[in-house]
């Protein structure tokens, strides 16, 4: 009786051990050990440009080009040094902000780094707060940064999630001088696996064979650092590194 009990217990624990070993082996076999060295570097599309026209009942933004996703993030900084953003559709390279537009998310910043974010969802009507039209006007009055960007970071982190060497900081998301968040690729560390531009659906990280503005993107060469953002400056028309 005792022998059969011991045998049964032993077989149960052996079963659990086999499952654990199989899981570990399967995980190790699946995990990539080698980095691809053939392939292409991603092209980072230059920061999108636009001109703002303020009037009492609307704000018009005229863009130089149509975004890939047909939508753009319009952002403005509030007094709490947070970037408040709204996702707006683009029709005929124009975006219109009205007093009925409420922000979609808030990004918390610390210097030129993003430290967190909140999605402001008005699906339950509880979290509406101030309209984005008001926030944008306040930013202009208070000489704080505002503008447009295509990248959805930190709400979207797909390029960083798929990058096999992200722990070495190959893709960075600094906050630029004009307050926009735009990817920065550290070329010397990039393994050219091609995953980042495959997953970018907003068209900021591009396959170089499809990029029109080749070589004009935001790259880090020879340990150059990204510029510190500063407030109260006019939006530059062209912004390249």
């Amino acid at each position, binding site marked *: 009786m005792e022998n059969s009990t011991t045998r049964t217990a032993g077989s149960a624990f052996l079963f659990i051990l086999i499952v654990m070993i199989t899981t570990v082996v399967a995980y190790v076999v699946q995990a990539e050990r080698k980095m691809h060295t053939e392939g292409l570097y991603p092209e980072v599309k230059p920061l999108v440009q636009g001109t703002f026209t303020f009037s009492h009942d609307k704000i018009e933004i005229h863009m130089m080009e149509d975004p890939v996703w047909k939508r753009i993030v319009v952002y403005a900084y509030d007094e709490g040094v947070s970037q408040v953003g709204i996702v707006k559709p683009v029709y005929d390279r124009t975006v219109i902000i009205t007093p009925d537009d409420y922000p*979609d998310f808030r990004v918390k910043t610390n210097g030129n780094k993003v430290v967190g974010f909140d999605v402001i969802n008005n699906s339950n009507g509880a979290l509406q707060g101030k309209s984005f039209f008001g926030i944008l006007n306040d930013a202009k009055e208070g000489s704080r940064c505002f503008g447009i960007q295509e990248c959805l970071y930190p*709400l979207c982190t797909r390029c960083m*999630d798929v990058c096999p060497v992200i722990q070495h900081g190959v893709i960075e998301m600094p906050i630029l001088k004009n307050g926009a968040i735009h990817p920065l690729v550290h070329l010397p560390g990039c393994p050219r696996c091609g995953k980042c531009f495959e997953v970018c659906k907003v068209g900021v990280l591009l396959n170089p064979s499809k990029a029109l503005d080749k070589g004009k993107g935001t790259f880090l060469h020879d340990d150059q650092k990204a510029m510190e953002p500063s407030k109260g400056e006019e939006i530059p028309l062209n912004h390249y590194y």
Partner: protein
Amino acid sequence: MRKINLFCYLVIAVFLAGSVAASLTSGYPWSIACYNCILCKHTCPIGIDPYGFVKAAISNEPDLYIEASSIRLRLGEAAELDPRLSLKVDESEMTVQTALAKGISPDSEVTVLRMRAKDAAKFCPLCGNCEKPCPVALPIMKIIEDLKDDGKFND
């Protein structure tokens, strides 16, 4: 009375079997494992309720209406997409048909409240934010990518 009771219990059995069959047919049987915790709801930058996609997969119904509260588009584009799409116009809720009947211009921008899952999938930027808080790591983006292609499941 016994026959009525038997019939009712059969309805329950058919309902449970039907739900499993529907989720298998959609190609996403794992959607039944959803905890219904709705933690994914406040993660979408454009206000889509990702749980709606899971519900659509469970019921194998790409035309299921789901919440999509921050998608903005022109009324004309909305009418092309779905005349029964639910919109927010001047703090009140109405369908596209009603908005057009009230004389609102097709070029004016409106905010969506509810739309079909297959239509919402078209607007999704596939950022993956909805998968991050899921306690059972459901691959919600697989459903969205499937619907994005042709508006149908598993084709």
